[in-house]
């Protein structure tokens, strides 16, 4: 992705290993003095070949593989995949399973937003907020460990339902944790809105008007902060969101400050939804049977990850391994906004701007194949491996 003013400007390369961001990616900013005039992004440093690897494993093993597309939003990837496969198999998971899936998804959203708050504050030099928000995030990690067994990559989904159940003790613990977190979130909102140095760094930085956001195809809280009312949980509800609806939260300024506010308000809404789920948790069984061989068909499964809209395309030819799985992650859409919006800002604002869209590099590296009809080859596993080794020799 490039948008560059050419001829002789000074190019500052940042990355792939750099202090500003935690995962590798290569950025090139064309600057004139301190003002940025163009930006280019080069990704692909964490490509793992998951889509190819998914074709070699059967439907159930793929849940665990696809969870590891992203460390922060792992449950929502597994949910999107299982919802898609269940659609293909014409099976609906029981209501208790859907409610538990929604509960874990909302807990994941809270953990992701708190993580992002800490990292974005760290980019802005505000390390105290980093320490505070990650300490509070430990409450959520503790709850998730208690419910699911792992702090990251909680494998709760199975085809047809969930693996874990909630009992009264766990429900009481979740409520207690939520009370604590709600108080802390109000405190963070106060800090974001009143701290002068913080406001100085975030107000009017990276302003994106609503029209720009719609043209560039931004998704998730980045778009909602510019006033675009797009949230898949409200427009196309899936899993438990039919019974437990979510409020659409937008802001109008479109700058970095608005993105902070939108995410914190989303956290507050998550607490409300989780409490509602706990109050009205439906009874029943946890999973239904799904056949080993999924019938033929193609399907698209869309869910709302903490970063935006996540789309899965799943194709089956009737066997016990999928034929093709394509993942389109939200962070990929939001990069385009950075390259346009970065123009005109000072170089020192770049780290916070990049952190403002909540980039998740692991989600990004999908392989796009340019279709040249004359030169088509089918490559086997061994060929690919050999190619990979020799290309980078």
């Amino acid at each position, binding site marked *: 992705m490039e948008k560059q003013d050419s001829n002789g400007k000074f190019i500052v390369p940042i990355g792939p290993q750099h202090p500003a961001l935690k995962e590798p990616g290569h950025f090139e900013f064309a600057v004139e003095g301190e003002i940025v005039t163009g930006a280019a992004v080069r990704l692909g440093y964490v490509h793992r070949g998951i889509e190819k690897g998914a074709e070699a*494993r059967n439907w*159930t*093993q*793929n849940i*665990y*593989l696809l*969870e*590891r597309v992203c460390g922060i939003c792992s449950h929502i990837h597994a949910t999107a995949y299982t919802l898609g496969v269940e659609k293909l198999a014409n099976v609906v998971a029981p209501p208790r399973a859907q409610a538990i899936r929604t509960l874990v998804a909302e807990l994941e959203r809270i953990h992701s937003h708190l993580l992002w708050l800490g990292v974005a504050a760290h980019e802005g030099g505000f390390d*105290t907020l980093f320490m505070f928000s990650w*300490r509070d995030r*430990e409450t959520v990690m*503790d709850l998730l*460990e*208690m*419910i*699911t*067994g*792992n702090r990251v*990559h909680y*494998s709760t989904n*199975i085809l047809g339902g969930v*693996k*874990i159940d909630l009992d009264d003790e766990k429900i009481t613990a979740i409520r207690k944790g939520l009370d604590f977190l709600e108080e802390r979130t109000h405190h963070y909102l106060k800090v974001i809105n*009143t*701290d*002068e*140095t913080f406001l100085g760094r975030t107000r009017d930085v990276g302003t994106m008007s609503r029209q720009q956001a719609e043209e560039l195809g931004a998704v998730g809280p980045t778009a909602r902060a510019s006033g675009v009312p797009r949230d898949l949980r409200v427009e196309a509800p899936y899993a438990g969101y039919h019974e437990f609806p979510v409020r659409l939260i937008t802001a109008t300024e479109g700058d970095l400050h608005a993105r902070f506010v939108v995410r914190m308000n989303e956290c507050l809404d998550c607490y409300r939804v989780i409490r509602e789920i706990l109050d009205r948790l439906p009874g029943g069984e946890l999973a239904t049977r799904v056949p080993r061989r999924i019938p033929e068909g193609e399907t698209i499964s869309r869910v709302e990850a903490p970063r935006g809209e996540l789309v899965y395309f799943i194709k089956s030819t009737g066997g016990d391994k999928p034929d093709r799985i394509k993942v389109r992650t939200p962070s990929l859409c939001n990069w385009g906004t950075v390259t346009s919006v970065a123009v005109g800002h000072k170089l020192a604002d770049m780290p916070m701007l990049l952190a403002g869209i909540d980039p998740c590099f692991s989600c990004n590296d999908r392989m796009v194949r340019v279709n040249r009809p004359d030169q088509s080859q089918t490559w086997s596993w061994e060929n690919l491996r050999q190619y990979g080794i020799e290309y980078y020799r």
Partner: protein
Amino acid sequence: MFRGILEGMRQTLRSFFEKPVTIQYPEQKRPVRARFKGRHVLKRYENGLEKCIGCALCAAACPADAIFVEAAENTDERRFSPGERYASTYEINMLRCIYCGFCEDACPTEAIVLGDNYELSFMDRAASIYTKDMLLEPVPAVDKLTPQSTPPGVFTRSVPEMKDPED
């Protein structure tokens, strides 16, 4: 301007008097939650026989291909597990395992269970392959060691009678 600085300093001063949340690992180890997925353990029955029957369903289920199982036949004089077969070789590569719990779900006898140990660090890669004797649960008493010699005709079922097969 000053109000902002004072507010920030007030926060900092307040946190001087808060209880620190740091867990002083390694002196203080917080116990993990009940469902935590740590290092695997091969379980035994109360009479000391191993639950693992060497069916290799766990190896087939593993998304990372981390388990290697070879089975052999039980005789009544040297019996390792109820039923006809037992696992003569059982190795798990801890560095390939992703601790997902699928082997636990796939096992028909509830033999392999993900336990609580998370302290897995090795100096070299070969040390990470845990063999059966490292994974087996220790016995409470010496007379329950395997192989045992048992009366014929008693332990003929590999998979125990379960009260609720849907469980």
